[in-house]
């Protein structure tokens, strides 16, 4: 599969990134190189191998359902570019 400039532009839009023409060019060529490498990997026979979701040999790691103190709203909002009445404030989105 070829990663066209359109695909990069669409993916950029989904992540709310504005990409210049030069960037589209650069990223599509980089992404195509990555995919070429994946094509190589695809040649390996993995018929009987289960997918590896995680390299740690751990299973069923769970926490007990107990409440611990949260951050204060002041702390939570500390890095917010805009805030009001303990809310994060963002541009209106539909």
């Amino acid at each position, binding site marked *: 599969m070829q990663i066209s400039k359109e695909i990069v532009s*669409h993916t950029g839009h*989904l*992540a*709310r990134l504005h990409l210049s023409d030069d960037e589209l060019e650069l990223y599509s060529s980089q992404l195509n190189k990555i995919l070429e490498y994946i094509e190589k990997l695809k040649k390996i026979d993995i018929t009987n191998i289960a997918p590896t*979701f*995680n390299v*740690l040999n*751990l*299973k*069923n*790691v*769970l*926490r*007990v*359902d*107990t*409440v*611990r103190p*949260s*951050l*204060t*709203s002041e702390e*939570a*909002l500390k890095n917010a570019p*805009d805030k*009001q*009445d*303990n*809310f*994060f*404030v*963002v*541009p*209106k*989105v*539909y």
Partner: protein
Amino acid sequence: MNKFEPVIGLEIHIHLSTESKIFCSCSTKFGNSPNSLTCPICLGLPGVLPVLNKKAFHYAIKSSLALNCQVSESITFDRKNYYYPDLPKNYQISQYGTPVGRNGFLKIKNRSSNPVKINRVHMEEDAGKLIHDQNGKISFVDLNRTGIPLIEIVTEPDIYSPDEAYDFLQELKITILYLEIADCNMEEGSLRCDANISLRKAGDKKLGTKIELKNMNTFKGIRQALEYEIQRQTILLEEGEKVTHQTRLWDPLKQKTTSMRSKEDIHDYRYFPDPDLLTYEISNKMRNKFKDELPELPMAKRERFKKDYFLSEYDADLLVRDKFIASYFEETLKFHINPKAVCNFLTSDMVGVAHEKKIKLSNIKLTPKNCGKILNLVKEGLISIKTAKELLFDLLNYDIDPEKYIEEKNLKQMNETSEIKNVIETACKENSQAVTDYKNGKNSALKFLVGQVMRLTKGTANPAMVNKLLNEKLNKEEGK
């Protein structure tokens, strides 16, 4: 006959009633001040590690089993990517490839031999809450809800009318409540439902173009939104127009749906496995343990009540609708023999009194034993049904023996002929005009006199005897 047949699917999100969030230890409490229940994990700050809440995991398995799903042997979590300010990580941790449950079903009213098919039950984290500023260009974000554990239940497109959708939701809600894993409170958003609906020519196999419906806040609203869509789409199709795939919002005030302005490419979520979370295995042993622990579910209980206690569908449904009442009913039957009498007493009188006194059913202190005693007193003619209702009112909040109580309060029904006759004499003397009226053929005067006798005895006189004795007296005098 209708030319078009609706095909409906539902997607239900339910908050699991855990103390803490699904991947962090923040409280799930509702109604806290904005952004006071967050931490680096649910804020999606870099470098943090989510760890699954054991209770949420178990609750999800229970719900899958109760909905007759095949439970996966092992599950993983996936990232559902979308960019919206209610989601600080820009992805939601959800499940894509390995939901907890698959291929389930739920029996509903009128479809017990053809239950509604359930596609999947999976776990995910809730997003935050956005409040849009009506006038300005900004929105306010509260992330307290971010990370509250949810199960999402997705049905197959296997529902064929708005009424069936309503019945399904009722049955699903009661079933989940029986499991005691969620409170399903729609007002607080702990149960939310989206629907999709398409129309096809009656008899066609192929599905029509699907419309997705959002923003319904009550089960009634869901039924209304679906009814509206059937009308709207029928008109389009009859005029030879096409239905275009879109998401529409239900407006409960205008009672109509409107197309949602959305620039987002729907369903472009680019799911991939979340490397932060490990695999969770669900062994046979674990599955069987949870299966054995499932309570008797509403549909089975309803059937058993009908069969064992000779109750109508209607009565069985009233009892089973609330798990507490259903078990209270069976406990009371250990002390009073007549199921129909207990059913009526509980579903109309007790529920009514509890509502009036604003007592939660599960907090009622009157024991089933004492409740049975009240009904026995009525059966033995020692108190009237009216007194029984008054006892309910007085004793609902107490563990007091009703036999002793009526003794102390002199509430015993007056069954002695001589006693009642005395009161009748007084009533007739005090109301001689009514006696004359009756003798002049005004039958309603008798009813008035019965009422006076009941008043004088504070309702304890046996009404049947009062009627009989008063009739005898008045007609005898007339014969003189």
